[in-house]
């Protein structure tokens, strides 16, 4: 597998599509920790997250010929995991609402800006206290280091909406985290 270490994801996909199934193991190895971390942050259950990630890799393999190698493999596989996670959350009826009295549009709510490091700490602690619609872009931006453009591709929402959701999520998390102290 050493010889594949320098190949891009998209090059590996093309090799798998050409018939070399074993190369898919390299893609699984590359993405397993990232996808598992992301799924665990959304689903709050390591076992369910592992099932979601396994199903993601299987669905990605089955549909590999449908992947457009001019696009990013990373966004594509995160998108599959997003769909899996959404299905599982619906199945387990997990619905979190904004805290009582929270007005996301109110600019007076928690004016203090946190550093990125502090925000990441807050995300680890409070991500499961906000609605999934807001938790997802925050997890992708702060925990997975994805750009707005990539998050837009994964969640299929405009980049501007990504920014709005992240800001609202941060405000909601600050409020929730403060209440928890």
């Amino acid at each position: 597998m050493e010889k594949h270490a320098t190949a891009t994801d998209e090059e590996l996909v093309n090799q798998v599509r050409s018939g070399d199934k074993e190369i898919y193991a390299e893609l699984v190895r590359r993405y397993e920790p990232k996808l598992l971390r992301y799924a665990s942050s959304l689903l709050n259950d390591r076992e369910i997250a592992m099932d979601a990630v396994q199903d993601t890799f299987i669905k990605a393999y089955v549909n590999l010929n449908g992947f457009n190698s001019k696009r990013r493999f990373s966004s594509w596989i995160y998108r599959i995991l997003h769909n899996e996670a959404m299905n599982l959350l619906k199945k387990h009826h997990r619905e979190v609402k904004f805290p009582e009295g929270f007005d996301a549009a109110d600019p007076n709510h928690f004016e203090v800006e946190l550093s990125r490091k502090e925000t990441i700490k807050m995300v680890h602690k409070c991500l499961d206290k906000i609605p999934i619609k807001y938790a997802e872009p925050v997890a992708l931006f702060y925990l997975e280091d994805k750009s707005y453009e990539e998050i837009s591709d994964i969640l299929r929402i405009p980049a501007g909406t990504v920014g709005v959701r992240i800001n609202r999520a941060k405000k909601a998390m600050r409020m929730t985290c403060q209440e928890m102290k």
Partner: protein
Amino acid sequence: MPRNEVDLTREVMEKIRAGEVKMRSRWYFVGGSAAMLVGVIAALVLAVFAVSLISFSLRTHGPMGSFRLQQILASFPWWAPILAIVGLGLGIWLLRRYDFSYKRNFSYLVAVALVAIILAGVAIDYLGLDDIWLKRGPMRQYMQQFGAGMGRGNNMGGRNGMGPGGVSGTTPR
């Protein structure tokens, strides 16, 4: 026993090696894309057709049409606007689900599509291009019945109406 991350790679690869999981052929996706394209085009054609029919229906009631509301309502092809809405909805759903249209302002895209459909429908009716529907295509039978009911059809001649010189008409084509 709790699973670990090494198991996950092994489990996935074992299923692939054993042939339990197979890659779909390229043709499956080519067929899917073609079906989607046909679906979107059909939805748009249906929407344009419905608008041209509505425009025709409203126009044939003449200058005193507003005083004959009951008559218009009674003969109005209600299925046409429903079909237009369903067609447009289907087209939008297909685009949202499979395309990267989210990168653009979606409400702007919908507004442009609606204006284009309405303009195309009205233009087709006023230019008489909808006579094609009378002669061929899946809507021929309905259009002939509808045209006959409204004083227009294959056996009724082409376009009839009131002009400055009196009643005008065309010979059957």
